[in-house]
């Protein structure tokens, strides 16, 4: 990398630290930035700094926000008795886009994975239990990712929430819309059969 002048190699090094960016892409981005106008580069840099400095996680639900509690937590028109638990802020966005869910959220910031050293104490589980203790919430919807770690997390939460006399449900695992049955993998299909519903 020291074929480049120092500022360039420094920029490449920083860029390649970003997720999904390898050394080659980092090089391409660095050249792109170098060839962009000073204005463009400043816009990008200030957007990054501004995002970093003005954003935080909501103290209540853990969602990404400028002010805590976040807008979703403050919105009294939402169903105050239903709480949807997700792994990441981007899952909140995904669910909001569907406009199907009008309750409140709780973001765990991850899933149980002993391999990566992530245990219950590393997630926002104690905060979740505090929220449930107020007695306002009647139903918890577990919307963890449908992978092994997500499922383990959901089972773990179900185990500790159920004794609190709160209804615990989880998202139905269905078939992708527009998917051809023939091409859907066995696991998805068998889960879909397991979770079949009367119509």
């Amino acid at each position, binding site marked *: 990398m020291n074929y480049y002048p120092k500022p360039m190699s420094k920029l490449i090094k920083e860029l390649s630290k970003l997720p999904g960016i390898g050394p080659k892409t980092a090089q391409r981005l660095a050249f792109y930035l170098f060839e962009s106008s000073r204005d463009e580069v400043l816009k990008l840099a200030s957007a990054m700094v501004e995002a970093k400095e003005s954003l935080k996680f909501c103290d209540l639900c853990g969602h990404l926000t400028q002010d805590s509690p976040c807008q979703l937590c403050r919105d009294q028109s939402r169903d105050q008795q239903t709480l949807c638990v997700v792994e990441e802020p981007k899952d909140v966005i995904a669910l909001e886009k569907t406009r199907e869910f009008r309750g409140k959220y709780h973001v765990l910031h991850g899933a*149980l*994975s*002993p*391999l990566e*050293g992530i*245990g*219950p104490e590393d997630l926002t589980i104690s905060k979740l239990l505090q929220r449930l203790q107020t007695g306002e919430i009647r139903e918890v919807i577990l919307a963890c990712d449908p992978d*092994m*770690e997500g*499922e*383990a997390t959901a*089972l*773990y939460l179900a*185990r*500790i929430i159920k004794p609190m006399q709160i209804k615990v449900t989880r998202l139905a695992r269905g078939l992708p819309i527009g998917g051809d049955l023939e091409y859907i*993998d*066995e*696991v998805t299909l068998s889960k879909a059969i397991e979770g079949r519903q009367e119509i």
Partner: protein
Amino acid sequence: MYLEKIKIRNFRNYCTADVLLAPHINVLYGNNGQGKTNFLEAVSFLTLGSSFRTKRDEELLKREEKGFYLKGEFLDNDESLLLEVGTDLNRLVVKVNGVVYKSKRALFGRVRTVIFTPDDLQIIKGGPEKRREYLDLYLAQAYSGYRKVFLDFYRALYQRNSLLKKFREGFRDFTELEIWTNKVIEEGSRIIYYRLKAVEEISPWINRYHQLMSKEKEDLHGLYICTGEMRPIMDIDCIKEEYKKAIFRRKIEEMRRGYTLVGPHRDDLQLLLNQKWDLRVYGSQGQQRTAALALKLAMVDLIKRTQGVPPLLLLDDVFSEFDNERKKELLRLLTAGTQTIISTTELRDFPNLGSEFKALRVESGVIFD
């Protein structure tokens, strides 16, 4: 499904080779060190996505070259399948019918393949992991659900072991442990179930092939051995129950040692002569060799039965250690229905090459029709 054509570029000692194969039996002959095993390795790399000799792709690359490329054209009645894999060691390109995939795993399972090499004696003589590898490789090809269950089991197992390590250091969350224990039991039971079922089915075939090929005429049977005093009952719910009990019995010890002590990752396939004598201990060299081959041939039958079509059969140097009588028996067992590529240094082991046979001569990385 059979391999009609293979294109090899810079793989092992091959620079360029374009070979047409016959749908039945192909005899690859040549002196030592000419490239017979390398050819079989190329074929199996295409169909399994891995080599039977090495895990390191750089060893496969022809020395002093920058990248290798393999392409196989397979035919099945009027359907065709195109498998391609190429790498310059930085980038890997895998294509199935022209569609690009990210990993070599995408090649696996499209053309089922059974390989025998002289190293397979280790299945008999080596540790239990060799026999588990044997079962896993072929069960993944015989049962379409096996590979997924296998990968899920190991993921759950590593998660549980990481947690048990924390238990050893004094951390305790029994709810979390129970969740991962259940996952391990759930996936592990299915592996045990598949393996029990498979061993029961292949055992008579193993015996038959062994009887045909070995001189001693002793019975040979396979027996699946579960760890942790689990009773091997062939019912998925019973296995789960047994597995649960077995893990419970070892709970304290697992927390002390920091890993999972019971399960398919520690099971074994025992091979018994006359229902009683461990082949590993009591078998003659010759019996052990024929047994290794019998294990592989039995998998051809299992795959035929579960998939409805025979796998591709690759036999490396099977003849070298057999006497004439056993060579003859083996030749009789090869059938035109299963595409076979068999390597040998002695073409005269194939006395009357009929129309079912195609002979290919190999000389320092060049193949002559």
